[in-house]
């Protein structure tokens, strides 16, 4: 019933292993052993990139995971970026209780440039991804979405959204109800007006025009 501690995802460039960093290493190792055991050598010889979801993990954990993987004949890839210092361009996305879409490693994945999240983000949860993010749910106040590309929210966006996190000037934030606490696009920041905010009646898009963040009703042109 508990959310999965270890998740394997197959991609064109190899296997991704996502660890729930809010668990402890003993549980993770046990879950990983179990998963590999169930797979019965299926993953043997595969190259695995290890990612973490949630808090920052100590380097010893990664070494422990490496030894488990190697015991089962898997090869762990050197990580493209030190996951112990993720989100240097992101506004503290690893807060906690977060579900990180694998920032840090994901840029090495050709084609996998949009992540789909089929639930709401609640206060304290955050997602960051090197690419676009689509959320089928609400983004509640106190949560954060950070993407190097566009952000699309099929629900109310009331938390903090950061599109174009690597500086992309053409990044957009679109939501059915766009009423964020704060919006960031590339190097620009806008915040919601003080006082009561009326809920918008139609979907809106935020983007940069002449160096300022503007919000307009969403149209397909």
């Amino acid at each position, binding site marked *: 019933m508990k959310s999965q501690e270890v998740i394997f995802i197959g991609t064109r460039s190899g296997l991704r292993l996502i660890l729930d960093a*809010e668990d402890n290493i003993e549980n993770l190792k046990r879950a990983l052993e179990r998963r590999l055991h169930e797979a019965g050598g299926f993953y043997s010889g595969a190259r695995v990139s290890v990612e973490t979801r949630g808090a920052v993990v100590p380097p010893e954990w990664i070494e422990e995971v490496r030894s488990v993987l190697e015991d089962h004949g898997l090869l762990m890839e050197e990580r493209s970026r030190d996951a112990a210092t993720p989100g240097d361009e992101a506004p503290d996305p690893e807060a906690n*209780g977060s579900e990180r879409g694998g920032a840090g490693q994901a840029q090495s994945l050709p084609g996998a440039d949009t992540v789909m999240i089929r639930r709401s*983000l*609640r*206060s*304290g*949860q955050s997602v960051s991804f090197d690419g676009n993010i689509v959320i089928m749910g609400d983004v*509640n*106040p*106190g949560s954060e979405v950070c993407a190097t590309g566009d952000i699309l929210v099929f629900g109310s966006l009331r938390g903090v959204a950061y599109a174009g996190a690597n500086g992309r000037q053409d990044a957009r934030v679109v939501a059915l109800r766009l009423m964020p606490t704060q919006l960031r696009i590339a190097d620009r920041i806008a915040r919601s007006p003080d006082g009561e905010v009326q809920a918008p009646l139609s979907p809106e898009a935020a983007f940069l025009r002449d160096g300022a963040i503007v919000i307009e009703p969403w149209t397909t042109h």
Partner: protein
Amino acid sequence: MSGTVIVVTSGKGGVGKTTATASIGAALAMMGPSVALIDADIGLRNLDLVLGLEGRIFHNLVDVVDGAVDAHKALIRHKDIKNLSLLPAAQSRDKTAVTPESMKAVADELKSTFDFVIIDCPAGIEQGFKNAVAGAEKAVVVTTPEMSAVRDADRIIGMLEHEGIADPWLIINRIRFDMVKKHDMLDVNDVLEHLKIKLLGVIPDDEAIIVATNKGVPVVVDEKSKAGRAFRDVAARIMGEDVPMAAAAEEEDWFTRIIRWFARARG
């Protein structure tokens, strides 16, 4: 037999977790099922006081976790409500005296003989919270109609999901319909629109709660109290009864009340 373990939690302090735990527990027990309450707020215990059982504490949760006494032996039977028992918190220790595993073991043991085991969770999102939710299958999230409490409830709902407790129930406590009507207070729909979980009950702000708490008599015993009635409705809904949200409806204003009073006087 295997009972249901329910944790009552909120994130924010002072929204009425302990009152809700005591009231729901007492109301359920009065309807027939056997209920064990666990006070997981180690170091800041209150549940015994609210239930009027302070003087009867002999063993506590930490004694049980330490293995000094069996969980069933440590329980205190309520003096008036015979199906209600309490496992009190230790006052001289802190949250680190218990682990999530040991807490789960206690809850599992109690649910073998009780229909409901209700855990009063401490405020916060740290170890005390992790302990309290460890053995729970269901959760009741208590909030008040204030933005800060609603935000914290949102955070807690996310954390409950992470712990594998999906679809928690919501109680909106201390609502004042006169303020809602003047748009000075969030209404039920504002809160639901934000949190999007199942509403278990709306409890009106009621001075009877303060009186009941100080006297150590659960408010649900008070037939006349509006909050007491709302908590009895909550218990009925937990039992699976389909009770309409009476309290969520507009409270009568003085004018309707006078008309009704005249009507009754005439008839």
